[in-house]
């Protein structure tokens, strides 16, 4: 009887495995073809000199990698990514939180604000990129026009290497602040009404409620938001590629735009793969380090 039971449960277990395998197969196959194999392939291609089209593909060992380590354009691009990351977190999160707080305190009567504030998020990055190039144009752009009203001259934002990156970051913030607004609004909904009620009965002002109660309770949300913003900033591509193409010079170059230009504009796919692989490694390191840092603080 016991042996029969054991074989029955083994059989059952086997049928569970079979069913699991069948259900998981489509996603597994797709990830294998479009994600896992390509990662492997990119690392492999990074060892070759290859223009992407011809059969002439020369194995050059680690030459591309040695070049990457000395390639100032790549490191400038990485620095720009990090700058975007830091400024995105420093600008988007506080403003997003402020807007969410305003909407939470004001209640339903502020819905018109909420709706209007959300609209930038509806536009694709590409469309924002194009709109940005025209809206911030030196001649007839929004900022230049406003400057004219106050008697100033044209302001060149995107053509000036010193201002271009900051300008682009402001556009990115404009796009994503509504996202963090909605995100923190969800955070506020998660705080129980009793907490607010208790604070209110105890005579806490709105300011006290925010700083002493809501803010500390929202810290976990903020941590996740920071991670999201960080990972997004390091992968950033669309908007900047459309708006500046990485220029002028290398002033708004990102790892992704640099990789794209090397591979598909200069047809240097061997080195492009190296840049992509380098970007992948850097993103892994930064993500792991941040998560470890944030998790350690959680344990304290």
């Amino acid at each position, binding site marked *: 009887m016991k042996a029969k039971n054991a074989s029955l449960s083994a059989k059952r277990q086997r049928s569970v495995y079979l069913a699991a395998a069948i259900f998981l197969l489509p996603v597994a196959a797709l990830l294998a073809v479009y*994600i896992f*194999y390509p990662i492997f392939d990119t690392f492999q*291609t990074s060892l070759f000199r290859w223009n992407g089209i011809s059969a002439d593909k020369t194995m050059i060992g680690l030459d591309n990698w040695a070049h990457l380590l000395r390639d100032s354009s790549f490191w400038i691009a990485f620095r720009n990514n990090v700058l975007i990351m830091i400024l995105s977190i420093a600008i988007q999160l506080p403003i997003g939180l402020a807007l969410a707080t305003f909407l939470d305190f004001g209640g339903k009567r502020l819905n018109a604000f909420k709706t209007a504030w959300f609209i930038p998020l509806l536009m*694709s990055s590409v469309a924002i990129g194009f709109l940005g190039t025209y809206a911030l144009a030196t001649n007839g752009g929004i900022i230049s026009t406003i400057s004219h009203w106050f008697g100033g001259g044209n302001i060149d934002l995107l053509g000036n290497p010193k201002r271009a990156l900051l300008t682009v970051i402001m556009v990115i913030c404009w796009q994503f602040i509504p996202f963090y607004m909605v995100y923190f609004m969800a955070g506020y909904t998660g705080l129980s009404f009793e907490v607010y009620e208790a604070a209110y009965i105890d005579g806490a002002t709105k300011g006290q409620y925010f700083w002493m109660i809501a803010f500390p309770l929202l810290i976990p949300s903020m941590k996740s938001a920071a991670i999201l913003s960080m*990972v997004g900033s390091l992968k950033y591509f669309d908007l900047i590629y459309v708006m500046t193409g990485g220029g002028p010079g290398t002033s708004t170059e990102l790892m*992704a735009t640099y990789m794209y230009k090397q591979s598909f504009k200069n047809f240097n796919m061997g080195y492009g793969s190296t840049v*992509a692989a380098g970007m992948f490694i850097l993103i892994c390191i930064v993500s792991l380090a941040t998560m470890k840092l944030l998790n350690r603080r959680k344990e304290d």
Partner: protein
Amino acid sequence: MESYKKQRLKSAAAWTMAFILASIWLVVSLLPFLFMVLNSFKEKFEMLVKGVFVLPDSLNFFNYKTVLEGSFSRFFTNSAIVLLVCLALLLFISACASYPLARFKFRLSNPIYALIVACMAIPLHITLIPVFKMTRSFGLYDSIWALIGPYVAFAAPISVFILTSFMREIPREIEESMEIDGCGKYRMFFYMILPLSTPGLSTLAIYNGVNIWNEFSFAYTLTQTAPNRTLPLAIWEFQGEYSMNTPMIMAVLTLTLLPMIIMFIIFQDKLVKGMTAGAVKG
């Protein structure tokens, strides 16, 4: 009483301040759209001569007419086909994969789940060159069908992540009672799990739908000629054609934004919720 009055005065001042700041942000949010819509109704030289924030002479739809009579509908149709095919495939296979991860007990469940979830952080650029090569060798290069595979693959990890946590919430009792009735795993999936997951699936449809509708990198790399491109690239094509005609470009931009605005008006809260579905705690 005096202090109460003082406090009310203080809070009124704080609210006034908050409203002023909120209004400033309102202007910042909407000014670019005002710029876009206002100028889309102008003629080419009208904008240059009269300035960007002056109302157009008349509400002329000339730019819109030109854009719509051009290849815009082709881009739109392409995007719609890609969207529908991708969503149908994505939702079905993600639901399939989430079912065993959420409801079966087997040893490999956690490692597989972790592996799929880890894919969420992978930048698509590391796959761009190999996917480009593969697409060429499959003979799919420069067709909208080239986009289906990468879109579904990159949307799958987050979809599985969200659906798995959704399916875990379905009460065990229903499943047990059906098991006693002799219902197998496959029937269970189609007759119970899938119908009960509809709310999760609709959130995912919105989240992934918006991303697929706006996707740029793969579309730009894997297609080449205008008839085979999707809506985000329409602007690119029109810009090549009308580079000096800003009002025309503004009309294109307004038209690409319009479907999203319509969706936003119809679904509002659902759309907002769906678009931020990706923001789950990591």
